């Protein structure tokens, strides 16, 4: 047992932080700066972050889910408006499904409520399915059920919808295109593979939430030091201090449980990995909404204006919170993993 980051993992974190700090948005207006986003996108491509789950010669991933989480956290912290979740899950599907890579990056298709990877029985993807990181993606992968398991297939993307998140695009599938087979596919995903991809998606979105919380807290803490009322910085008032302290502690707890979930993706049996990831995701999704709402509250009036970055953190957290399942689905999974099934009676009472 030694859960410290290795030297390589620390170096990866530092290099991701350096990219995000120099090329990520520092203001809401920066989100419209096409030159900056192109530079960030190029840096992300050159870094190889999106290919961390691509296969090595022995079929395993290039890097563990811990490395994925390390990068995701930095991207969330800096509100990085570049694709990562979609391409990472696509790389995992390609690896597990024996599908070759294509030029440019790919993403995946999720169910309409974002809670699971979309499947296309009979080659039909349900209308309303959602495509994360749709902008710029060459194609989106779906799972085509077959007798041998789920085969990786592709949708060619057309439209991209905006979604609540201002830093990452969400495409909405209108059901008008065709699912095509991916040339060269040499395998299929079994239930265990699907479980592991799901665990990866939950750990990855949890890590993004940890970073988003960290960034929101840094923003709000800085404001609380500078903003003065009653002749003193508002950060000197206990009411404000306690809001920020609670936010920080929620973020720290989220960080610890996410670290475990990320490790579990590759180290534990699939069902255990999914249980660990579900616990982390429920914790982080609940925490992140509260932390980002606190960041808005600490900013007062300005926090409720478009120009303040606080709502950009909240918006990102709301989407990450739902990716591969939010609080509800994950609480249910934790219960089921402990063998506690739903009973018929609602309301308060107790066993006796």
């Amino acid at each position, binding site marked *: 047992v030694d859960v410290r980051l290795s030297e390589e993992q620390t170096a990866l974190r530092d290099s991701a932080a350096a990219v995000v700090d120099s090329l990520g948005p520092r203001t809401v207006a920066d989100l419209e700066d096409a030159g900056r986003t192109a530079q960030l996108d190029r840096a992300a491509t050159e870094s190889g972050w999106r290919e961390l789950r691509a296969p090595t010669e022995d079929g395993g991933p290039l890097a563990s889910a811990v490395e994925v989480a390390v990068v995701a956290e930095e991207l969330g912290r800096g509100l990085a408006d570049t694709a990562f979740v979609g391409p990472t899950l696509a790389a995992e599907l390609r690896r597990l499904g024996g599908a070759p890579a294509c030029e440019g990056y790919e993403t995946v298709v999720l169910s309409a409520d974002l809670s699971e990877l979309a499947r296309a029985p009979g080659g039909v993807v349900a209308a309303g399915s959602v495509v994360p990181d749709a902008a710029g993606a060459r194609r989106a992968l779906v799972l085509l059920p077959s007798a041998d398991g789920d085969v990786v297939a592709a949708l060619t993307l057309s439209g991209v919808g905006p979604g609540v998140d201002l830093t990452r695009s969400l495409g909405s599938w209108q059901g008008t295109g065709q699912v095509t087979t991916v040339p060269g596919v040499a395998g299929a995903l079994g239930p265990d593979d699907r479980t592991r991809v799901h665990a990866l998606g939950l750990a990855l979105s949890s890590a993004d939430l940890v970073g988003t919380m960290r960034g929101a807290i840094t923003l709000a803490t800085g404001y609380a030091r500078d903003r003065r009322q009653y002749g003193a910085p508002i950060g000197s008032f*206990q009411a404000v201090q306690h809001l920020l302290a609670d936010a920080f502690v929620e973020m720290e707890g989220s960080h610890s449980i996410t670290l475990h979930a990320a490790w579990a993706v590759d*180290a534990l049996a699939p069902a255990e990995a999914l249980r660990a990831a579900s616990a982390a995701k429920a914790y982080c999704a609940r925490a992140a909404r509260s932390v980002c709402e606190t960041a808005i509250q600490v900013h007062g009036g300005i926090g409720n204006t478009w120009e303040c970055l606080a709502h950009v953190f909240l918006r990102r957290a709301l989407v990450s919170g739902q990716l591969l399942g939010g609080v509800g689905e994950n609480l249910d999974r934790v219960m089921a993993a402990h063998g*506690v099934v739903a009973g018929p009676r609602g309301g*308060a009472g107790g066993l006796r």
Partner: protein
Amino acid sequence: VDFADSPEEQAFRLRLRDWLEGHNPGLPPSSTSDEYWAGQAAWHRTLYEAGFFGLSWPTEAGGHGRPSVYEVILDEELTAAGAPPRPSVGYLVQGLLRHGSPEVQRRFLPGLVSGRERWCQGFSEPDAGSDLAALRTRAERQGDEYVITGHKVWTSYSDAADWCLVLARTDPEVPKHRGISAFVVPMDQPGIEQRPLPMINGITREFGEVLFDEARVDAANMVGQPGEGWRLAMTVVSHEREPGELGYVARYGKLANELVRLVGEQPHLVGAEQRRDLAWALIEVEMLRCHVSRRLSERLDGIAHGPEGSVDKLLMTWTEQSVGHAALGIGGVAPPEGEDALLKAYLYSRAQSVMGGTSQIQRNLVATRILELPTA
């Protein structure tokens, strides 16, 4: 990042698991009955004598000098076995290790770690709670002794203690933080009276108050130098805030597992609200276990005595109170006579946001010492 065991850790874990099968005393949930406190003292000695306590403390102190992360393994196995948690004396051990002279360490650490000698902690007073440095208990030098007079409260285990780690004012002339010294005072003497304080869940063997009326202590029992008492107190309370030092992961894990078992036996009697509370309790316990693994891993390079304990204390408190709420929902408010452990566990959980420094004090510390917000 590796949450898995090394081969040595795995061998230790299996040996511990094997031993626990034959030695679990089967005590009720922590702090829910006087029977628990009576049994916990024997459990301390059993665990120590089998070589499973003080795993990461120095061998000179009666510990095993193992890497810090062995404490996580101990907590995990105690949880899985439904055994009582490890005894929570680590904060005293850390205080003596950091501030005690070699003589004080040699004299007191082995008895404390082994459980042969029982300790309590005389810090808080009726007029010095959160503002601990306002304490008024005084110690005056008389020859080779100090004479102590004052009133301590919220003194856990004072009824069973052989020794009390007392903070007392030795110099009333200097600013309040600088005039305090710390002593290891023998409890069995005419100048000391201890009285139990029944807690809100009815237990009487935990909480107490201690009155010192010209109690005597050998000057050699001072921990650190005259005036070093405040620094020792800060070391002790910072570790008293750490679930990794207290071993509370096993406390909460045992209770949460018990709740899962009860619900599994009678699923038709438990509603959606209680199941949701139980799910959150399980997740909070999992979070705390992971957090303790992280903190104890950070200790592999040595112990830091920083403000992070306040973060840990709040996470620990939220976990205990979340488990408490699940216990309340599942146990109900009208349990039959003698089957009220869950209700008592809930009531006891309210103390966690007060003991060892209130949650409000922890938030002040996180805000000013970690987030570096300005002080008023």
